[in-house]
């Protein structure tokens, strides 16, 4: 299963990568913002799972979703938003633009695991 992490914070990227590796994922890729992620998706094709931050420079998570959702075949990817936005309205907005699940930062391996289970993501361990 391929995973694309979109987050401008290097520490958050590193931490998420280590959690995903611990959960058995091997095909991992990172982008620093939505614009860079769209480039990767255009060049390399769709990823099974996208972990998406909300607040990023160039193109934030919500803008990314609006563009990405208009691409044919985008529904092949499951999207988990991971963010410091913790108000109900924000969660609702994210679901409305097509995000499948929502994880509030900070989170640990167990929390990520529980969200991936809800999303029906097949874990390799």
């Amino acid at each position: 299963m391929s995973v694309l992490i979109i987050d401008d914070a290097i520490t958050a990227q590193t931490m998420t990568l280590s959690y995903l590796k611990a959960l058995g994922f091997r095909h991992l890729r990172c982008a620093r913002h939505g614009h860079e992620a769209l480039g990767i998706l255009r060049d390399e094709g769709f990823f099974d799972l996208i972990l998406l931050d909300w607040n990023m420079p160039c193109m934030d998570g919500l803008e990314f979703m609006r563009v990405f959702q208009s691409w044919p075949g985008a529904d092949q990817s499951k999207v988990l938003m991971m963010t410091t936005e913790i108000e109900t309205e924000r969660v609702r907005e994210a679901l409305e633009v097509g995000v499948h699940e929502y994880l509030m930062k900070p989170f640990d391996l167990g929390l990520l695991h529980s969200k991936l289970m809800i999303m029906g993501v097949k874990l390799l361990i």
Partner: protein
Amino acid sequence: MSLSTQDFHYICNLILDRSAIVLGAEKEYLVDLRLGILADQEGFPSISALVKQLTQTGDAGLSKKVVDALTTNETLFFRDFRPFEYLKSELLPQLIESRRHSKSLRIWSAACSTGQEPYSIAMIIDKHFPELKNWQVEILATDLSFTCLEYARKASYNQFEVNRGLPASYLVSCFDKSGDRWELKPQIRQRVQFRELNLIDPWQMPPMDMIFLRNVLIYFSPETKRTILSKIKTSLKTDSVLFLGGSETTLHLDPNYHRIDSKYNVNCYTLDKNKNKSRERRERE
């Protein structure tokens, strides 16, 4: 604070006596950690001073607090997820069909801890089964720990708790944010009745349509498991369903329970030995 071997054995016996929970030597760290916190809260200079108070005075209130501190177990919304998918997609539709004349459903969450399990059931009913509005649906939630029950009744959870296992669609439709807490909407909270109950004490329950007894039996000796499963039987109708935790079984404990086959691969049992056959028949038709 540290725990002497003698004090550890005293505490193990107390817990065994009051809750039938077996604390093995590997749990010494847990007893040390949790009793250290309790000793602090109660103003004792050490765990051994707390144990001394128990041995010398038999302080019933303090004993209860010790049992409470050591039997509080973790829980989360929609724990293991699949049992709740099964509940929503197979079991509730079946029960709605078979109970359509009585229009009544009774559900028991038998070790509800801080309430996430019974509230997960209540959320499913509220969100997906509007046809049950005119039914009498009782969700009873019991636990040994009064602190857990107090927390559960408030139905107010922190970010960690709602982040863990709760699907975002339920978060936005079933909770209101208040400061840094997430509060369950009153119409869902009111569906659950909480009561203090120790499973090893004598109890009587009306017949239930489903019982959630998940991750409870693992703490008991085989003998206590048999006793509890036998008592639980008296509260199950023939076609009712008992949910156990993923690593629990009735095998070699009680031959009257039959594991239900389901595509959700959940660990549930019924007293009806023909249930799987009738399901296969329905699917063929």
